[in-house]
């Protein structure tokens, strides 16, 4: 095992081992557990950064474990996987801090944090997966590790949400498996590093390959919450806030979107997709999802549900970018939104969690004047919400800008319309929340005020959203700098020679 392989393995182990230890720890050992968690995540971040540097300088990271002919486990570090791995590991650290604060005093914490760590291990596995089989492996494991988190509260409602989550996720997984096997029976094993299979297969199997593409997209589309497949996401909101953050920003939805990216860029490749002519389907699905998610978000009074529908809408920007895979600018927009959406959405969920945990506020109609009580939280919320709308200089604007440029470059004028309508809708469902929070007068006491201390809420709940909100601002402001998500995405896209 060379040093590159060692790095890959240790990236995975850095959260896996703490997770296993945490499972074995007795419930009362809070300090040790927190220590393990933080240690793991810090180690992971540093290792992932190391991976980034290595990839930047062209080192090869690859582990191959053949299982049966045609099926092998392949872990591979390429710029794209580094992007997702970095996002996940950094946000994991913040989510962990947040979760420690959030779950203070609640039962079954060692379970929670155990699954939490496993979940991130699996997500990083998805990031590092180098072929479809490995991707599938981690993709299914992700469902398993997140399920206990979704039903963590153990109420009937959460069980129902968990049930639907499973039905959707495993249904998608099954479709995905079928598609993968089918694809491999036609084109042989597909490694992501090859940037698409040979176009010679298209002549004889064009229709089937198009069908398989649709199946693959359905398979990952369930997690990415493309529209007819999104039903699980709003229901999964019954989970605790850190879990929602994890689902929406770090792991599940992101894994789906990442899957779309992989399928489009690495499995099929731009050339094949253009020849097959299936991209309009993806574009259509993404557009419908964007608009539908936004419109549904408008109707929600439950804050987390509104955020959930907003996620449905926002994540599809990634798919939208991918649907214009022949335009580098659009691809940049889509890829960078993977990071940007994650950071913004996690901020929003942190803040929603703070409101619920500190004041018992779950509904938007209860939020009148809450910014006076919790100014920092609401400031973070505001920044992230403005980012979602795409107000400069937040990172949301950067994504939309590149998507728009890509659309224009490809002559897709309808894309501008989509962006405009969706921005308006975003504004329509986010701005009233902000107005309520900042400018409305408080009506009566808070539903369930639980905390009164020096700061507006517990420090561990307060710091993570502030950090992410800061990132939302700064990463947009310095988007053109040498080190920024955008710069890295440009680096990725250069590698594809689109």
């Amino acid at each position, binding site marked *: 095992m060379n040093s590159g392989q060692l790095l890959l393995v240790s990236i995975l182990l850095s959260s896996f081992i703490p997770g296993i230890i945490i499972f074995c720890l007795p419930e009362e050992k809070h300090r040790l557990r927190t220590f393990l968690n933080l240690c793991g995540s810090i180690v992971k971040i540093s290792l992932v950064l190391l991976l980034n540097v290595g990839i930047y300088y062209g080192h090869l990271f690859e582990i191959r474990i053949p299982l049966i002919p045609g099926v092998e486990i392949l872990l591979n570090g390429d710029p794209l996987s580094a992007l997702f791995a970095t996002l996940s590991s950094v946000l994991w650290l913040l989510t962990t801090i947040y979760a420690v604060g959030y779950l203070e005093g609640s039962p079954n914490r060692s379970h929670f944090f155990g699954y939490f760590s496993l979940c991130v291990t699996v997500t990083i596995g998805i990031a590092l997966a180098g072929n479809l089989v490995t991707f599938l492996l981690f993709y299914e494991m992700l469902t398993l590790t997140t399920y206990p988190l979704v039903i963590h509260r153990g109420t009937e409602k959460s069980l129902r949400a968990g049930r639907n989550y499973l039905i959707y996720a495993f249904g998608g997984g099954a479709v995905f498996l079928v598609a993968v096997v089918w694809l491999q029976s036609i084109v042989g094993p597909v490694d992501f590093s090859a940037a698409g299979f040979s176009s010679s297969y298209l002549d004889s199997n064009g229709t089937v390959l198009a069908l398989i593409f649709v199946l693959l997209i359905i398979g990952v589309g369930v997690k990415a919450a493309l529209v007819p497949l999104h*039903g699980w996401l709003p229901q999964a909101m019954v989970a605790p806030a850190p879990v929602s953050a994890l689902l929406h920003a770090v792991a599940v939805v992101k894994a789906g979107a990442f899957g779309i990216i992989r399928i489009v860029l690495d499995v099929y490749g731009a050339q094949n997709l253009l020849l097959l002519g299936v991209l309009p389907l993806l574009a259509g699905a993404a557009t419908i999802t964007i608009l539908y998610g936004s*419109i549904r978000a408008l109707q929600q009074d439950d804050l987390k549900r509104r955020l959930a529908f907003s996620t449905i809408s926002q994540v599809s920007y990634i798919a939208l970018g991918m649907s214009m895979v022949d335009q580098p600018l659009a691809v940049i927009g889509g890829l960078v939104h993977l990071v940007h959406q994650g950071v913004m959405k996690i901020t929003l969920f942190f803040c929603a969690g703070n409101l619920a945990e500190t004041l018992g506020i779950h509904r938007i109609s209860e939020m009148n004047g809450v910014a006076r009580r919790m100014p920092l939280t609401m400031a973070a919320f505001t920044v992230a919400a403005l980012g979602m709308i795409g107000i*400069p200089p937040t990172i949301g604007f950067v994504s*939309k800008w590149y998507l728009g*440029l890509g659309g224009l470059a490809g002559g897709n004028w309808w894309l501008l319309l989509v962006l405009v309508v969706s921005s308006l809708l975003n*504004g329509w469902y986010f701005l009233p929340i902000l107005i309520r929070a900042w400018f409305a007068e408080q009506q009566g006491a808070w539903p369930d005020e639980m905390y009164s201390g020096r700061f507006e809420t517990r420090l561990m709940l307060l710091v993570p959203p502030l950090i992410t909100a800061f990132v939302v601002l700064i990463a947009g*402001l*310095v988007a*053109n700098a040498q080190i920024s998500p955008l710069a890295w995405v440009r680096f990725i896209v250069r590698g594809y020679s689109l």
Partner: protein
Amino acid sequence: MISAELQTMLYPFILSLAAGTPLIMASLCCTPLKKSVYHFLPWATVPAIIVALTGPGDVIVEVAWFFMGGRMGLDETGRVFLALAAFVWLLASFSSRSLMQDDKNQARFSLFFLTAMAGNFGLILAQGMLGYYLFFAMMSFAAYGLVIHRGNADARSAGRLYLFLVMIGEVALFTALLILAYGSGSLALENIGGASYHTLTLILLFIGFGVKIGALPLHGWMVPAYQTTPISAAAALAGSMVNAGILGWLRFLPPGQISCPWGALLFIVMGAMAAVYGVIIGLTKKQAGAVLGASSISQMGLVTVIFGLGLLSQEAGLLALPVLTVYVVHHSLAKSSLFFACDIVQRQGKTVSNLQLAAILLPALALAGLPFTSGAIAKTAFKELTFNIGAPWSDLSVFFLPVTAMGTSLLMFHFMAVIRRGRGSEKDGANMSRVIFALSWLGVAVSLWLWPGASDFAGHSLVGTKILQGLWPIAAASLLFFVWQRISWRKVGPAGETKKKTVFDTLVNRVTSVLEEEEKDRQQDRLIIFLRRLVPPLRRVEKIMGRWKVVGLSYIVLCLCLLLLLLQ
């Protein structure tokens, strides 16, 4: 003297200080220092003033890391706008400081005030599309905080409308920028002339910046917002922020570089309509701020017309640019001065004295183009522009200008009447507001005469015919007003815009009720119920399959089947 190198190194710093200072102070509003920030409001404008007066001209500084490639610089137009903005903001911040003394939300106010200020300064200094857009958005959204500051129902509905239109403007602008950036292949404003302008782009830009200046279909926010915004902030809004829209047009549709007769027509027609429309609705308002808002719609209509004339051809554009500048300076100073006048009325606890009334008359009638005022200079400039461009515009202006002048005068008399009746409660800082008004008055009175950029027009405005032409509409208007005063003070309902909001609401409800909750959850439950219904048959069949007779039968059937199939 500092060396040239050092100077180049310092440029970015100096320039960014203009916008940065208010921004930093705004961020202080989020810290425990927030209580004291408002004391230092005026100081936030100082760097901008310094930059405007001494800043390096025609140097563009690239700041690559900043927001996808930041560029800033101070060209001549920018310098005028910056100086103007700094002056208005300086007065407005003095005014705010005394106005907000007892307000419990003073920190919040300072935050938005300073952010809007930073946005305003920043967009003037920006030389890249995105930079402009960034600061423009910053200013627009921050201004929302000022509009809604009072927090009553009126303020909220005005704020809603404002925000709605701002959003429309933002996305229109965003789209226009995308098209321009893609067309010109660069984000720099200098290269923008290279882009080919679609009609769509032009319309989008009209909408994007038109919201800010209250161009006709997008004017709805202006009257209610000016009415509810605290006066000092309204002065800034009317005196400086509005100009950001004009500057936007100048930056993105640079006169002299592009021409677009078709688009020009759009601007001229909409502008002319706004000029008349503003007067008409203004006369129905009974509140000083609202009247001023309506007047702004009207005045900005004139500006739109000037801009439209500049779009007719490249030569016309070169001619229109100075005229536009002059008009903008004149309007800003006069309008902010009128707002400060309202401030006096509200604070001094008694009705305005005749002396005060006379003083207020100067900026008011300046707007109407009274000879020897800045208004006269601006009107002269306008007229000369049309004559230089030639027929049919010169002929049209002969009719049009007096009409608007008369309308504006009517409106201003109406305003005076409103102010004369107005009476606020006695508050601290009345003297302060008097001083501020005096300063702004001074600005109106002398600035255009002293400013070299307007000296040609100033000279021409002193010609006898011009004086006469300036006077008769006012005289006619005063007569009309007198008659109208006698007839009645008709009661007018509250601002019609609140109704518009409910139209939007019903629209929302319409759209969303179609997609009403979908019963997704319940549908899934229905699936479960359906599956549960399957359970009894399943149980029954399973039980039957367990009977020995059935087993025997299936045993035999299996044997036979296998035998047959194997024998094939």
